[in-house]
């Protein structure tokens, strides 16, 4: 049975094989495509070329744009880092002049005196605790014994010319008492 089927199928195959071969040969003999089909081909080619050109131009423009952006980023980044440096340097100055040594020296320069003799008024009975005495300027009146190398060369507020101090808007020192240079040496006990 299986023998029979095989032969049959081979026969069919041959037939199927031969027929299209003959038909293909027939197609080859057909005349070339009519001329009306040539115009679209050029049109398509032009379209493709134009498309490629457009893409190339667009890409060029894009990369020019990106490069331009890169330069812009670069210059903005460098100005950002410059501004960052300025900010860091200014805040460093601020912290430095906020140090106790600087504050004490400036306060003294303005004629302020530290009082190491606190006196208290007790509200419950009005008692005065401690012996009120005018401030003599305690140890803080002495030269700074707690050095700060960062303050070397910095100018005291009181030593600035008045117009400089006021234009800088730092402190209005016009109403501050005028203290001759060098307070009386404090007596530390």
């Amino acid at each position: 049975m299986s023998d029979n089927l095989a032969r049959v199928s081979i026969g069919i195959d041959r037939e199927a094989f031969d027929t299209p071969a003959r038909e293909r040969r027939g197609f080859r003999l057909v005349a070339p495509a009519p001329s009306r089909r040539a115009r679209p081909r050029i049109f398509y080619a032009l379209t493709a070329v134009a498309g490629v050109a457009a893409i190339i131009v667009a890409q060029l423009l894009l990369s020019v744009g990106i490069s331009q952006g890169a330069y812009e980023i670069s210059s903005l980044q460098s100005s950002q880092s410059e501004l960052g440096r300025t900010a860091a340097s200014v805040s460093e100055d601020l912290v430095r002049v906020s140090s106790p040594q600087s504050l004490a020296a400036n306060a003294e320069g303005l004629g302020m005196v530290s009082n190491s003799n606190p006196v208290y008024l007790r509200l419950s009975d009005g008692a005065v605790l401690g012996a009120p005495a005018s401030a003599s300027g305690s140890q803080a009146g002495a030269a700074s014994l707690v050095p700060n190398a960062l303050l070397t060369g910095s100018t005291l507020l009181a030593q600035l010319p008045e117009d400089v101090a006021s234009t800088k808007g730092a402190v209005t020192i016009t109403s501050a008492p005028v203290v001759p240079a060098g307070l009386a040496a404090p007596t530390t006990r």
Partner: protein
Amino acid sequence: MSVRNSSARKAGARNNPTNSRSSRRRTFFTVVVLFAVIGVFLVRLVDIQVVQADSLTADSVGNRSVGQVVYGSRGEIVDANGVVLAGTVMRYNITMSPVNATPFKRTVDGKKVEVSVADAAAEIGAVTGQTGDAILLTISTALEANAEANFAYIAQKVDVGVLRAVQELHIPWTYSENSPSRVYPNGAVAGNMLGYLSGDGVPQAGLESGQDACLASTNGSETYEKGADGVRIPGSSVTSTAAVDGGDVVTTIDSDLNWFVQQTLAARAQETGAAWATAVVQDAKTGKLLAVADYPSVDPNNVGGTENPEDRGSRAFTQSFEPGSTFKALTAASVLDAGVATLDTGVVSPYRYLPSNGANINDSHSHPDQNMTMTGVLIDSSNTGMSKFGEMLTDQQRYDYMKAFGVGTATETGFPREDGGILHPVDEWDNQTSYATMFGQGLTTTALQVSSIYQTIANDGVRMPVQLVEGCRQADGTMTNVPDATGTRVLSESAANDTSNVLEMVYQKSWVSSKWNIPGYRVAAKTGTAQMPDGKGGYSNGYLVSVSGFAPADDPQYVVSVSIADPVKLNTSAAPAPVFQEIMSQVLKKYRAVPSGATAPDLPSTW
């Protein structure tokens, strides 16, 4: 055979055997050459793509790309109020290429001007504070060492002002590089505690060294490709490792108070000609250190300005000494806590006391036998009287109390190289040591440990761990490494209060009472005068004089301990007493402590 047959057949078919043969030879030759060429390319391809791939890739990237260090910022050390005590800033090194140091042209007002090397050097020197000759010398030295020298420092660690001024000069052979540095905006305030870094950023001492695990940062890196004009090529690959900033160390110190304490201490130490001095301010209820002052003070911005290397650390932590009479408070508290004596118990204190064990005790000044209570013994600071009380306890009992007070063990601050002091085990005590330890000799303590003893008495007998650091504050604000703050009870509340009352009597009746009087407040304090070791096993002529105490005594909040070593002009406790007064006044004023209402209890000093 079959091949020949077939080729013969083919040749016969084409009818041109000679042409066919040469054509075959040509084909064969072409194929061989082709294969040889392909083989060469293949070998080269494998060599480039596989064998040398990594090194070539690295080379190509190296030619186009720039790598730069992204600096992580070392953490800050801040005080309890957030004031920066140590911070990181960017400084800049000005560098140059000696081999390229040649005259160049500069456009000035539209005209090209030639600038000689000497002129350029002088211009740089005017900015960096050097002489032009010094810079020329740097150039010639570098070129002598190496004729192709391409790198030399002009100035290191300059600030941004100098950097900009140098950049303004537009000298083509100068460059700059970043150099992160450490600044201490408050100078010597707490400088001895903070420590400092070496020139290349390695922590050398103090908190910088002890807290380095918290502070240390990790540098990152960034690599990108740049064009000839130095601008980054868009879309080029960037490989970056993020820098990790260090955490901030939050201390318990108040920088303003610390400055005041240092200033006061230094003034008195200079006045009395002291070798060194320390002062400690501690919160009585929490054990936190509010101020630790050392004289001489070191400015970490200028460590070289402090000549003696020993002055660069903090003696409050690292220097132990025989505390002397301030230690009597501990013995009194131990005796009261053990219940072997009360405030009414009387002893007879002679000038010289010879106990049965063979020791020999005498007081600092000659006096007849006196009938004294514990109050009287402490007011007069009598060694013999204290011995009579101390011997009511066994050596072991007193040793256990001392250990509980923290004597002989470094405190909990974790300060690098903190001294624990010397407290020998009881079985190593000789007869004299057995008595000497009652009044603060034969053992050593640091200023911190003495302060801690008074803190325990002030805090109703509960000793709090001595705390210098609140913790390590991470970038996200969380605190890590927060030290344990669990107190331990050393004395019963009544024993602590009794001791406090006795110390208040000392404050009122001691011979220095006029020198440490703080009106409006009840204060408890005790003086100490101890001989200093000469470093050869004996005693020198110098004394370490000290005052320790706390206030307000009715509700103790602050402990102040002042020690002055070898004040040659005034070697008694009259030297530290005014310092104690000024510091305690300032502390009470600064923290708005309420003046005491009730008057101090009056205890009998004799019987």
